[in-house]
């Protein structure tokens, strides 16, 4: 396992490749070749010169690498927005201006699953589809969050272990596990809104239509 302080920007790509320094495109190209994904793509394309095939495989890997450009902060916040204690603290601190609440998050797990896909087109006609699945699981322990005005403004303590995998067409391409120093490097800025836009409004009026 790799332990380090994460350099910004904190993306899934960083979790996979920052420490090793490996070229994501090269690694993904190799993994797709080994797993038979590349062959399937080329089969769907049909007649193509060898050199062009190499280029197509490389481009598929480039696009796959783009899947990894998801911001880890967004993933964590997406999970924390479902944390009952954090949401309650956000609401309370909105109701009482100037108040602040410290929330002991204890142990929790945030799982973020992404299912992007790439359409393969020949002369603008789709001939195949490559399904990717990126999964990032954060195991977080003993983290303390400070909430002010509905926003997450500070973190302290805590341990965070991130495990990430990326697969294409059900074939595991790369997996990595890494410790993240959240409270030191998570860019909270002026705070991260913990409630959805309308929920953050202290006005409690709900206007959704009912059947």
């Amino acid at each position: 396992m790799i332990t380090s302080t994460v350099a910004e920007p904190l993306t899934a790509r960083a979790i996979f490749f920052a420490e090793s320094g490996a070229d994501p495109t090269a690694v993904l190209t190799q993994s797709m070749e080994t797993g038979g994904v590349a062959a399937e793509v080329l089969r769907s394309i049909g007649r193509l010169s060898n050199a062009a095939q190499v280029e197509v495989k490389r481009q598929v890997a480039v696009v796959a690498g783009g899947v990894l450009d998801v911001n880890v902060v967004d993933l964590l916040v997406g999970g924390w927005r479902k944390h009952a204690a954090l949401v309650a603290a956000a609401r309370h601190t909105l109701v009482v201006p100037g108040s602040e609440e410290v929330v002991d998050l204890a142990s929790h797990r945030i799982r973020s699953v992404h299912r992007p896909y790439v359409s393969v087109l020949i002369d603008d006609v789709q001939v195949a589809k490559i399904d990717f699945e990126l999964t990032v699981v954060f195991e977080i322990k003993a983290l303390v969050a400070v909430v002010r005005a509905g926003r997450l403004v500070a973190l302290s303590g805590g341990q965070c272990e991130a495990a990430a995998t990326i697969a294409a067409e059900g074939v595991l391409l790369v997996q990595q596990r890494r410790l993240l120093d959240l409270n030191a490097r998570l860019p909270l800025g002026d705070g991260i809104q913990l409630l959805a836009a309308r929920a953050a409004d202290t006005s409690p009026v709900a206007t959704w239509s009912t059947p």
Partner: protein
Amino acid sequence: MPQLRAIALAITVGFGLLTFPGVAGALPVQPLDLDPKKGPPGSTVKVTPSLNASPGGCVAFWDSQEVARFTCGVDSGGFLSTDLTVPATAAPGQHTITVCRPDCGGIDPGWAQSAPFAVLAVVPDLGKLHLPEARSQLKSAFLTLRSVQGPADDPTARIVSQDPTAGTAVDPGSGVNVTVAVSPPVTVPDLRGRTRTEAEALATRSRLVLRVRSGSGRVDGQEPQPGSEVPAGSVVTVTLDARPQPVLVTVPDLRGDTRVEAEALATRSRLVLRVRSGSGRVDGQEPQPGRQVPAGSVVTVTLDASPQPVLATVPDLRGSTWAEAESAVRVVGLVLQSERERAGTVQAQSPPPGTRVRRGSTVTVTMAVPTATPDTTPIGTLRPMTMFAGVALILALAALVTSTLRSPRRRRSHQWVRHHVRVLSRATLSETVTSATGPEPSRRVGLEPHPDHGNQTLEEAHR
């Protein structure tokens, strides 16, 4: 029956154990051992009858009320005991615990022991009370107000501290010392339009006490009025409107789900799914995930465009002109090719009509050459147009042969790739296109990424 038991118990306790010579004469009489001998309601007392006999059934009484049956007597470890809980409703003061064998209710109980137990008074919480209220509560708890520090004469003064503290067990009749203070006034917040929960939270933050007069919806009236100055701890009475408070549910994140998955998740979340457009996966939803909405609300989603099917059905091209056939195959994503020429109409085709083939596949047709009109030109002479076409055909054939001879060497060369494969890549990677150019038929290979913002789930560990 209870009266009978009480009478027998009184006789037993009143006349002492010597009334029963059969027991008293055989066993040494000792008082019932209690540990502790006093305690507050709800506390536990260890009761040990000193009965020098083989273990057998005993009955325990709190005053005249049976409270337990247990085994008493003596064994190798000594006298057997049991734990009794002081009744929560026991009034502070002296009470009696009696143990009889076999039954205190009989004419001849055989054997009995009893001992007094003092129930202690529990000091109530007097915080924020005015002095008259505190006196009343202390009286109910069999206690007295011993001393008051602070502005005792000010009717708005409230208790800010007490000694002993709330919950302490003391002898009945003990005194409690309190300190009172006059709190600065607080401003009544505007509670109108808020739910009961919100109003309660806001009132508490403002050091006020909320009292709901009627209704179950949102606050539509309050007393005192917003902005009023009142002592801290004052009661704010609100009336709620008649509208029932809806049950709120959290909108789940449906993005990335198929229609079936989204419907299942919405139903589980007590919501109704409505699909606005599309047929693929959810790429937008309203309300947004995480919102609190009334149960039964509609969540409208938009699905992305359904991926085009990989297979296409070969159309029936027979009888079509080249242009018609080309248009027909292009619509379904196929490519038209002729074995010889493109004039006339389609005579035959391969694959046959109705065949399912992969998109991008080639449909080869055989065109019928139109019937030639009688040529009046003398043999040995060529019309200018025919001559021109022939020359053009020869040149084209020559170019094709040259290209074919050179192509293997070119394909082995990476230089060929640079010159003949054009890669267009936008900065955002929203579209990547590889285009093969050159003398071979051009085929554009495109990669179109469809990102997914993902779905985050949270699992909280049980503490």
